């Protein structure tokens, strides 16, 4: 009730002046959004992403699956795009590291993960690429090979590789490393890493707080 000195009709307490009420509502809105995103505070951005890379990546996003989920299994659907940090690379192999540290928030269940990378190939050439999935060993020691995929690439442009359960498990642990190894001799790796518009990235569909969701009493 905007009238000063009035009584709040809901809780009977003293009515707030408009400015204090606005502050209270803004604070409530912040807390409500952070709670639903399983965040304790707003993120501080470590490495801002360029508008170009953002626009390129968003073209590969699609809405979460629309089929209705049984009520007891409904969790919050999320789609995540992680841009690669390029690790040790040379003409024989390209290493891509992906980090996702909010994995513990609300119990995350990876449903699907795929790698997107840009290739510049000479005309009429085909190129066989091995993609190795490396995971951290016990006690976060060195990286071990979990599985690998073989890919035939015969045109320049964006290519997508659906990653299997090993990569999904690694991602839900918060750290995924991929190695792109060209088969046969190449003068230089056709995978384009540099430039904001061609940064490799992984798109992941997750369900947060699914089957293990605390039942509402």
């Amino acid at each position, binding site marked *: 009730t*905007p009238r000063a000195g009035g009584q709040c*009709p*809901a809780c009977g307490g003293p009515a707030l002046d408009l400015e204090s009420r606005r502050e209270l*509502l*803004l604070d*409530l*809105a*912040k807390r*409500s*959004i952070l709670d*639903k*995103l399983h965040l304790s505070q*707003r*993120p*501080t*951005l*470590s*490495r*801002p*992403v360029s508008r170009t890379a*953002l626009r390129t*990546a*968003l073209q590969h*996003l699609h809405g*979460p699956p629309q089929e209705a989920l049984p009520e007891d299994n409904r969790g*919050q*659907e*999320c*789609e*995540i*795009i*992680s*841009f690669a940090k390029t690790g040790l690379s040379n003409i024989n192999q390209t290493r891509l590291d992906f*980090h*996702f*540290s*909010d994995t513990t928030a609300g119990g995350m269940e990876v449903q699907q993960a795929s790698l997107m990378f840009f290739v510049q190939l000479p005309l009429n050439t085909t190129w066989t690429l091995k993609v190795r999935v490396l995971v951290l060993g016990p006690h976060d020691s060195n990286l071990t090979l979990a599985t690998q995929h073989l890919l035939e690439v015969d045109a320049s442009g964006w290519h997508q590789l659906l990653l299997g359960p090993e990569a999904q498990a690694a991602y839900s642990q918060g750290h995924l490393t991929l190695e792109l190894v060209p088969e046969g001799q190449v003068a230089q790796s056709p995978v384009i890493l540099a430039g904001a518009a061609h940064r490799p990235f992984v798109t992941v569909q997750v369900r*947060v707080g699914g089957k293990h969701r605390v039942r509402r009493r």
Partner: protein
Amino acid sequence: GIDCQGGSRMCCRQEFFVDFREIGWHDWIIQPEGYAMNFCTGQCPLHVAGMPGIAASFHTSVLNLLKANIAAGTAGGGSCCVPTARRPLSLLYYDRDSNIVKTDIPDMVVDACGCS
């Protein structure tokens, strides 16, 4: 449901838009520009049981109120002004590793209010 206007004291929906730029969140929330944190406010006296936008069927509302008031022995009790229609809030934001996250938070925006 009814939107609050002027000094209305009856149960209605109060619109309240939170502009992410105003609260300094526009750097990490890519889309949308803000959040309609509408809320329900106002009173639900006995005689409005069953009015349009009610949170239950007419029969149920009146019956519940009568039962509650007979049981409590009080006259003129009321019910609560609650959301009767809500929709999700779709967010596109950066997490602390600069990953881009797209998610739909269910039941975040109140579209209508009514007396329970």
